[in-house]
């Protein structure tokens, strides 16, 4: 696993490869010349200031938007996506929402119930929660259902599109732990979009920094997450020193309100 995480050598299997990807909204270029490769079993965090086109890139990679330029090779079998808003169907119960992705994935009806229970357990959803409608669930519970919906289809690649931005600090930590636990098996690869470097360092194997104006990936840093004692203190120290000394991270907290996503 470690070999796949660090060096993108010849032997690693590439789960996702973006080459020269570009995109424009109404003639305005938002992304240009993006190269990014994610190996199997690896989580790459994509950070950058707000409005730099991170989400757009994730949507292009997940085939929600068509890229205007470049090449996208998807080596994975099946992807799932977790959005910033839970995006649950309001008319379906939590169970129905998880079943929705299973239905779309073509899982036969009789297998669905078992898969739902199994996945709900993984994200600590109680059976009584499964019967509730999204309106009856708190923000954290809704996001849990969204995670369950993504994991139920047994994806080997997950797109995280700033999934925890809207949650409060304590809840965000719990959700991050949840993601860490579910990815611990190493079968899961993922692209984690965030503007929180702390979050990126906690979850990812590598951190890629996107240019403020979407003109390419500025650089990639390997997170020493395999190191023994990689706890919160270590993450904090690493982030602080990275922000202070690494020029790559100099602009990630820049905010330009005029720029729209």
């Amino acid at each position, binding site marked *: 696993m470690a070999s796949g995480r660090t060096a993108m050598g010849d032997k690693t299997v590439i789960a996702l490869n973006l080459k020269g990807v570009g995109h424009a909204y109404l003639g305005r270029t938002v992304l240009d010349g993006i190269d990014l490769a994610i190996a199997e079993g690896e989580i790459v965090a994509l950070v950058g200031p707000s409005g730099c086109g991170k989400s757009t890139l994730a949507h292009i990679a997940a085939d*929600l938007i068509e890229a205007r330029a470049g090449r996208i090779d998807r080596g994975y079998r099946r992807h*799932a996506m977790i*959005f910033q808003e839970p995006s649950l*169907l309001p008319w379906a119960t939590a*169970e129905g929402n998880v079943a929705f992705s299973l239905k779309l994935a073509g899982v036969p009806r009789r297998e669905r119930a078992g898969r739902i229970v199994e996945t709900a357990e993984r994200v600590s959803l109680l059976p009584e929660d499964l019967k*509730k*409608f999204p*309106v009856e669930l708190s923000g954290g519970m809704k996001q849990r259902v969204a995670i369950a919906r993504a994991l139920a289809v047994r994806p080997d690649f997950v797109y995280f599109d700033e999934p925890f931005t809207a949650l409060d600090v304590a809840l965000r930590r719990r959700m991050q732990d949840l993601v860490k636990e579910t990815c611990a098996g190493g079968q899961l690869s993922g692209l984690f979009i965030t503007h929180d470097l702390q979050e990126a360092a906690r979850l990812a194997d590598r951190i890629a920094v996107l240019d403020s104006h979407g003109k390419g990936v500025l650089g990639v840093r390997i997170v020493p997450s395999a190191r023994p004692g990689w706890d919160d203190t270590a993450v904090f120290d690493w982030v602080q020193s990275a922000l202070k000394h690494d020029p790559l991270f100099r602009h990630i907290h820049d905010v330009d309100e005029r720029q729209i996503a």
Partner: protein
Amino acid sequence: MPKILQQSLFERLADRTGRVLEFLWSGWAGLAALCLLAAVWQAGHEAYGPFILTSPVETLRAAGALAADPDAWTVGLKTLQRAVTGFALVAVVGGALGIVAGYSPATMRLASPLVTVILGVPPIAWIVLAMIWFGGSDATVRTVILVAALPVVFLGAARGIVTRDRGLDRMARAFGAGPVRRFVSVGLRQTTTTLFPALALALGTSFKVAVMAELLANAGGIGGALADARINLDIANALAWVVISVGLLIVVEYTLIYPVKGELDRWRRAAQPWGIKR
């Protein structure tokens, strides 16, 4: 088999029975309102005399006499048939057009002025035209219903699509739903929020317009019976026919629209604290 599924059939049944009982229980409020109306009606009767306004009891007696008459049933069912087929026609045509316009801004831009034009033409003008085209037949009544109720159904359907949550579309797409799947499982369902009030309105319009068209086009049905009552100055019979046509509308609305709406709106009720549900 997992536990949650074993319980679910019984639970679902109990849930549904509970909802039906709750719904029936809410009928008391409707009954109270009707009694209030009857009281005002009775007061009017006592003030102006039976020739101007027959008493509610007298009217109900006349309605009862009509209910015992098989010929009256034929008349009532004729109107019912026309109103319901006309409503079905407008629901399908208006709904389909509205959904297309909701997805396609160009169609919407073209259709909006047309809707205004249709809204502006008085239904009575359509009755005259339809009479010339189709004579005193079912087609006349259906055409007038279609024209009269089309704008509201169209706007209801279009509004539902336009105001849909695009995040859900994106989510469905991320999980591999094609355009048809997205429309059926996500788009269509969201239309119901605005489409159902529009359909309820359209159903009421269908009955009113059906009776009116029948009366003016001399096409039989309840409208025809009302015309006869007018010729005979038979107030009791005229009011009895009005009661019957309103009764038919209520029956259709509560057997056709409300059960479907209740089923679709379960999640909305789940959000309400129990005190508001009554």
